[in-house]
């Protein structure tokens, strides 16, 4: 770290930012050399997002300097930052849902030819430019956003959780593309919770903790440990690895399954969902993007009506017309997207209490004392940080997700359906969620856990099923479900199948044509 300022492409020094009483950044520094892929790491609430917003001009710092190519710059807006050569790809695709892709590109004055080139490189070369953004799957929108940023040829490209929610084949392409930026004039700042990706593409990592830069690490073999150590501070020993022993203690009750799914089909993607979920177990679900898992969870949660098949809860056939029916039958849903689950302007208490009353006489008076007790218990169980409890939107992402889980824990859990509950959440909160799911199962609940992170299966589950092309194609014990095994199953590989990526992306392309879930995500409210 003896590089002088002029050798650096981007240098941020002693950047600080407070929102009211909340200190988002205490003293953050970041130095990026030309031609490097630089990871920005930190648990949720460490200040990554704030630093990114400051670098891209979305937020003004209270203090600190930002130097780009040796000249001090203060960006007053994202357009300003772009002129200085800093472009960011945010977690939420910055595309106008009601405009087609061509108009979206014109809006940002993106040159067409380079964009097409990058789209081709990223494996989506045959994209229909006149498609409305809201009709495209979320994963594609993110890739479009990336190609658009690359087409501008920025000096510094900021990628915030770029690979979250991308299917494996696209992730691979994106990582390859990022890797190719190395060694040139330009640099990439890469933000991800997936350590394996950091190890694969990054040269160095800057680690933030509680709004401060606590270290810069050269990414080499075995540096993950060091990074995690820095991110977590003193609680290193609690890394998920410590959970292994406890994880694989399936205590399946004999007899009737808690939830029995037979040949359930829905929409164009789910054809034959068939599996049993038992009390006392955590059943993992693995699938590439768009294989019918969204529909399966929507059917189980009562948000969508199946077109065929049979559902049984505790042996009794059920049919859900409304989520309230599913909740009354004991099936509760935890969404990946907090925007789908929370009342942003309401308090933590109201957010937790919201479904507590579903079982009550319609529109009756709420028993305030009982509600308060249940809510308090749930808050304590999940260790929710309630400092900003008056408006849930002011909580950090991890705490928000805890609130969405707490609302079900408060009422007592029978069967919990978790759809990628740890997406974009820091390691520590993730681990708390694993432990909680395990405790719920031990207490007799049944837990269904879809996850886009294959590693989670062995950490959190007893058993796993794999969905491909709308059907359950494999079931295995979590002990055998290491990442290669799961990937093979998720791609539905038979021993001699060839070109899995092409097949899979063709399947995804065919099946994702009208992904409804993208609309909600693309139209979601901007982060405050």
């Amino acid at each position, binding site marked *: 770290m003896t590089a002088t300022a002029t050798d650096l492409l981007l240098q941020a020094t002693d950047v600080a930012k407070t929102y009211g009483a909340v200190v988002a950044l205490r003293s953050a520094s970041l130095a990026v050399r030309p031609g490097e892929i630089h990871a920005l790491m930190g648990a949720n609430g460490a200040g990554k997002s704030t630093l990114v917003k400051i670098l891209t001009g979305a937020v003004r710092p209270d203090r600190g300097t930002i130097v780009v190519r040796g000249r001090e710059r203060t960006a007053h807006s994202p357009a300003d930052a772009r002129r200085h050569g800093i472009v960011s790809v945010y977690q939420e695709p910055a595309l106008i849902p009601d405009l087609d892709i061509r108009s979206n590109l014109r809006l940002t004055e993106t040159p067409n030819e380079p964009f097409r080139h990058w789209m081709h490189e990223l494996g989506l070369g045959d994209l229909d430019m006149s498609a409305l953004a809201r009709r495209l799957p979320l994963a594609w929108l993110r890739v479009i956003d990336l190609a658009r940023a690359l087409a501008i040829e920025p000096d510094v490209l900021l990628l915030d959780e770029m690979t979250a929610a991308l299917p494996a084949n696209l992730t691979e392409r994106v990582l390859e593309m990022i890797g190719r930026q190395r060694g040139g004039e330009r640099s990439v700042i890469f933000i991800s919770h997936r350590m394996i990706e950091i190890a694969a593409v990054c040269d160095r990592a800057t680690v933030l903790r509680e709004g401060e830069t606590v270290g810069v690490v050269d990414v080499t073999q075995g540096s993950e440990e060091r990074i995690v150590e820095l991110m977590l501070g003193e609680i290193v020993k609690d890394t998920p690895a410590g959970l292994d022993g406890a994880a694989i203690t399936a205590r399946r009750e004999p007899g009737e399954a808690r939830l029995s799914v037979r040949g359930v089909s829905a929409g164009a993607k789910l054809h034959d969902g068939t599996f049993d979920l038992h009390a006392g177990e955590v059943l993992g679900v693995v699938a590439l993007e768009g294989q019918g898992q969204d529909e399966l969870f929507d059917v189980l949660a009562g948000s969508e009506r199946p077109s065929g098949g049979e559902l049984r809860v505790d042996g009794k056939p059920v049919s859900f017309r409304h989520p309230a029916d599913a909740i009354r039958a004991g099936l509760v849903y935890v969404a990946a997207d907090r925007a789908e689950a929370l*009342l942003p302007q309401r308090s933590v208490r109201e957010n937790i209490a*919201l479904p507590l009353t579903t079982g009550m006489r319609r529109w009756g008076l709420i028993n305030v004392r009982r509600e308060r007790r249940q809510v308090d218990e749930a808050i304590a169980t999940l260790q929710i940080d309630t400092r900003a409890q008056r408006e849930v939107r002011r909580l950090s992402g991890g705490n928000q997700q805890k609130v969405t889980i707490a609302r079900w824990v408060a009422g007592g859990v029978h069967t919990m359906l978790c759809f990628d509950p740890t997406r974009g959440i820091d390691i520590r909160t993730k681990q708390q969620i694993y432990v909680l799911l395990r405790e719920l199962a031990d207490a007799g609940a049944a837990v269904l856990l879809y996850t886009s992170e294959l590693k989670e299966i062995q950490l959190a589950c007893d058993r796993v099923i794999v969905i491909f092309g709308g059907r359950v194609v494999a079931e295995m014990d979590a002990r055998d479900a290491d990442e290669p095994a799961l990937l093979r199953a998720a791609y539905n590989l038979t021993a001699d199948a060839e070109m899995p990526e092409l097949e899979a992306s063709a399947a995804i392309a065919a099946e994702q044509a009208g992904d409804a879930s993208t609309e909600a995500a693309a139209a979601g409210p901007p982060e405050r």
Partner: protein
Amino acid sequence: MTATTAGLGASRSRPIDAVAGWARRNSWTASLIAFLVLLLVFTRMIQPNYGATGVQGLAISVMPLALAAVAQAIVVISGGLDLSVGSMMALTSVVSASLMKDQTPEFAFLVVVGVLLLGLALGAVNGSLVVLTRVPDIVVTLAMSFVWAGCALLVLRTPGGGSARWLRDLILGSAGNEWIPKAAVAVLVIVAVIWLPLRRSRLGLSLYAVGSNQLAAFRSGVSVGRTKVAAYMLTGLFAALAGISLTASTGIGTPVPGPYTLQSVAAVVLGGVSLAGGTGGVFGPVVAVVILQLIRTDMTFLNVNTNLATVAQGVILVGVVMIGSLIHIRRSRA
């Protein structure tokens, strides 16, 4: 959580703390009340004669709009907007006036109950159309405002009818102390009896939930359609109360809708209810109505041209809301 439990414990021992806690949680309404007090002092300064009679007149003139503001606030909290509030008031006012004229007090009581049910029904029609047709609230309620206004003219071509004696007595004059107008007591009692229990009920939570995030409410088992219809029904109920109060305070029914619809929207905004839904309460809008009326009165005292007074009212509305959001932005930044 400790903060809330401590606050609750303290409220049992010291009412001052409870008031302070309430003011902190409802800072917007608290500042509105402070502003109202300042305005009253100012009124007294420019018009030393302004006393108990003035306050009574203020309360009576404000009552219909205050109830209309509550009506509008409820539907706005649930994420909708009702542009037919004024027309519903006109319709319920003429129905009650034409049926009550020269009738016995007992019959008049039945009329009041019937008109309240009529209000619920009007709201149910509005709400069902919004939910079933999926046409935007503004379009549906604007169209229905013409329908209800037309119906009002069918019932009574020209202002007429009458009000039962007891109904007028209920809001005219003072209750005990000459400084406490009956009309103000009536508004507070109506709001307390209907809104406060509602706020603590499942329906109340559902109203806020649907206004805040429909998808989240749906996923949590709230019936979005039913909640919306209920919100419009409550709006209809309060519009009917406003219509009856109009009949009672003027003694006749007027078939042409007053400026109540847009003024109720103004009061809701000034009262701290976000037009995006999900936040605020009904008390703020009531205070806002009183403030708007008092400003008008002061303008008269100051001999300001009435047209200019209307302009000033608009400027004040924009100014106050702007200052409010500036404070909000500063607080979330600094």
